[in-house]
């Protein structure tokens, strides 16, 4: 009965916050409140079915509805989804298996370029004829294909380097990501595979197969207005699949083997865990997630170039996993959401606010400090430009004060302390 009561309370919170967003569609604060209802659903003790019902209510019905009021929210939600999926992939490698991968973005890039090259006229450059771009339906072939390609490249990289010590592994994966980025940047000659720094565009989007159905029911809408919702649901589906797979893996013998390796590699090997094979599997699974997300990213962006796949992206995803809690699925989701929202809404919002201050022409007089002409604030101070500082502080402070993250994994009681 108590569970039901809290369920009703949660429902009230969700409705209130969505009402707030509905009345103030431009307020970032209202939207953040609405987003936090998901966190509340996770925290408040209610039966699992109610949680599932409420979170699907929020994600499947309310979110797209509110997104139709302010398109930017839907964009934020899609970005959050993409980063959640990436962070969940890295969580398997770093969080569960304890392998620090600093080049995670390379697999993301591989997936993105896989679809970008064949889903645009680019492939005509090196395959004779004008077969390309492939029809949009191929998107659904490339999505599963990218999972295999990602897993394959992950294993390919992992095979030689997984015998290395943890810190060497980190640097090698970093080097690998730089190699991939450099190749993508330079492989526009002698044969034009990637179009170099100019990037690839236009990339095909997945087909709007449901449009006739919508029209049949009288919802005639232009493709341009449908795509954000479409991508939102594609990303939501991807994230849901990744969460299901990660949870199943986490609770299986594979997940236990990963955690055993993370805690003590030698002990794990002594207990008969096939260490190298398990590490390879972790690498491959993480890479396949990233690569699948890459396909969706390329289709959503329409244009991609090497700039989207820098070292900073890898670090951003790492910061998400560490902030949320390595090895914890809700933690990783939370970390990815917080970092993305901070990046997209908070920092940008602050920058806009600073801009408006500058244009207001107010001259501020402070006691003891003298007067400040606000129009003199240098443009260099825009907080949106200091994401490295934010990520850096997150990493240092989390390591010093809370290395287990905001939401550490619940079954993490088997720590290695006390062992000789």
């Amino acid at each position: 009965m108590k569970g039901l009561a809290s369920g009703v309370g949660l429902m009230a919170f969700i409705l209130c916050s969505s009402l707030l967003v509905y009345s103030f569609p431009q307020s970032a604060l209202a939207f953040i409140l609405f987003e936090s209802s998901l966190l509340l659903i996770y925290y408040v003790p209610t039966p699992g079915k109610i949680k599932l019902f409420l979170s699907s209510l929020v994600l499947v019905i309310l979110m797209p509805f509110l997104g139709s009021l302010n398109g930017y929210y839907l964009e934020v939600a899609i970005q959050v989804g993409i980063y959640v999926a990436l962070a969940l992939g890295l969580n398997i490698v770093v969080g569960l298996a304890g392998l620090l991968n600093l080049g995670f973005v390379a697999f993301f890039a591989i997936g993105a370029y896989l679809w970008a090259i064949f889903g645009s006229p680019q492939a005509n450059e090196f395959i004779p004829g004008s077969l390309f771009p492939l029809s949009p339906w191929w998107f659904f072939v490339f999505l599963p294909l990218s999972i295999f390609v990602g897993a394959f490249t992950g294993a390919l990289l992992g095979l030689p380097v997984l015998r290395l010590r943890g810190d060497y592994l980190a640097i090698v994966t970093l080097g690998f990501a730089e190699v991939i980025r450099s190749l993508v940047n330079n492989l526009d000659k002698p044969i034009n595979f990637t179009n170099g720094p100019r990037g690839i565009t236009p990339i095909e989007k997945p087909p709007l197969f449901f449009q006739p159905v919508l029209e049949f029911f009288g919802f005639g809408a232009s493709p341009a207005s449908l795509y954000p919702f479409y991508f939102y649901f594609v990303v939501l589906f991807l994230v849901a699949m990744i969460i299901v797979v990660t949870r199943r893996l986490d609770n299986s013998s594979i997940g236990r083997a990963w955690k055993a390796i993370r805690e003590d590699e030698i002990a794990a090997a002594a207990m008969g865990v096939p260490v190298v094979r398990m590490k390879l599997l972790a690498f491959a699974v993480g890479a396949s997630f990233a690569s699948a997300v890459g396909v969706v990213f390329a289709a959503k962006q329409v244009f991609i170039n090497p700039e989207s796949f820098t070292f900073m992206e890898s670090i951003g995803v790492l910061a998400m996993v560490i902030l949320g809690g390595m090895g914890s699925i809700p933690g990783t989701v939370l970390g990815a959401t917080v970092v993305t929202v901070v990046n997209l809404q908070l920092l940008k919002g602050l920058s806009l606010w600073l801009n408006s201050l500058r244009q207001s022409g107010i001259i501020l007089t402070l006691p003891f400090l003298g007067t400040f002409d606000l129009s003199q604030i240098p443009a260099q101070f825009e907080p949106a430009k200091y994401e490295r500082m934010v990520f850096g502080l997150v990493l240092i402070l989390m390591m010093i004060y809370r290395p287990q993250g905001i939401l550490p994994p619940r079954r993490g009681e088997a720590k290695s302390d006390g062992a000789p």
Partner: protein
Amino acid sequence: MDFALSILPSVLVDGIVLGFMYALIALGYTMVYGVLEFINFAHSEIFVIGAFVGVEIFLMLEASGSLIALHPAFVLLVVLFAGMISSGLMAMGLERVAYRPLRGTPRLVPLISAIGASLFLQDFVRFVESLWRNTFYLSYPSLDLLEKSVKLGAMTEVPVKSILVIVTALIMLFVLYFFVNKTKLGMAIRAVAQDPATASLMGIPVNRIIALTFFVGGAMGGVAGVLFGLHYSLVNPYTGFIPGLKAFTAAVLGGIGNIPGAVLGGIVLGLLEAFAASYLSILTDGTFGAEYKDLVAFIALILILIFRPKGLMGERVREEGA
């Protein structure tokens, strides 16, 4: 072929200059690894801070008009010294704030903290320079002395800049060699690198020696930063990343923890890179050009770590127990 031969001397000089620069930076990685078994990822920013302190002093001297009045050798000495001290102090401070609280934690924890410190420092430098100069892309003013070149033989000209880098690096390396091998403090550093617990029992203040190691490694990075600025002129807060990664490669190439190894690794890598930059396009008929020189260094890193992780001169392995 004639063309390939004719550029050989300048390629060699470029490679050696680059190599000494990598060697100076690599020393910071290798010394810290020696005492703490930890990759100081933020060392590339220590290097950048040296470069920025150097350019700031240059610009201040230029603004006050004394750049022309003072003897260039004196100016260079002041700038190098300032870059050295500030980078050394920065490295020490970093150790105190971001690494010391994490000693004794699993390996990846301080590494992640170091990555955080690296990112933080990049934007910190950017912030300070934006506040101070309203731009964060700075360039070293040119000194007449450095723009000249010395004729060696019939057709080879060596720029004074390159000579400056090589001579300074050699002096620094000699001083470091003397310091580590012939002084009491150097002996303490070696003792801590060998076995911190026993060193502590022998009355060596391990924490202070670790701080000193950071200072010395940072100072080498600072000198490299100033030399980098003098040689390539342009600096920005993010310049450190690629040289840092390559210097780390050099340290691994030579055998991490091994001081002479870092120097050897730096020079080998510098030569490799200079040759790749000049000869790759000749060898492949222009198919692959100088843009692949970064790739050469990273592929070298991956190959070394896979096939000979202890490096050319062997990794200095800490003696376990007995």
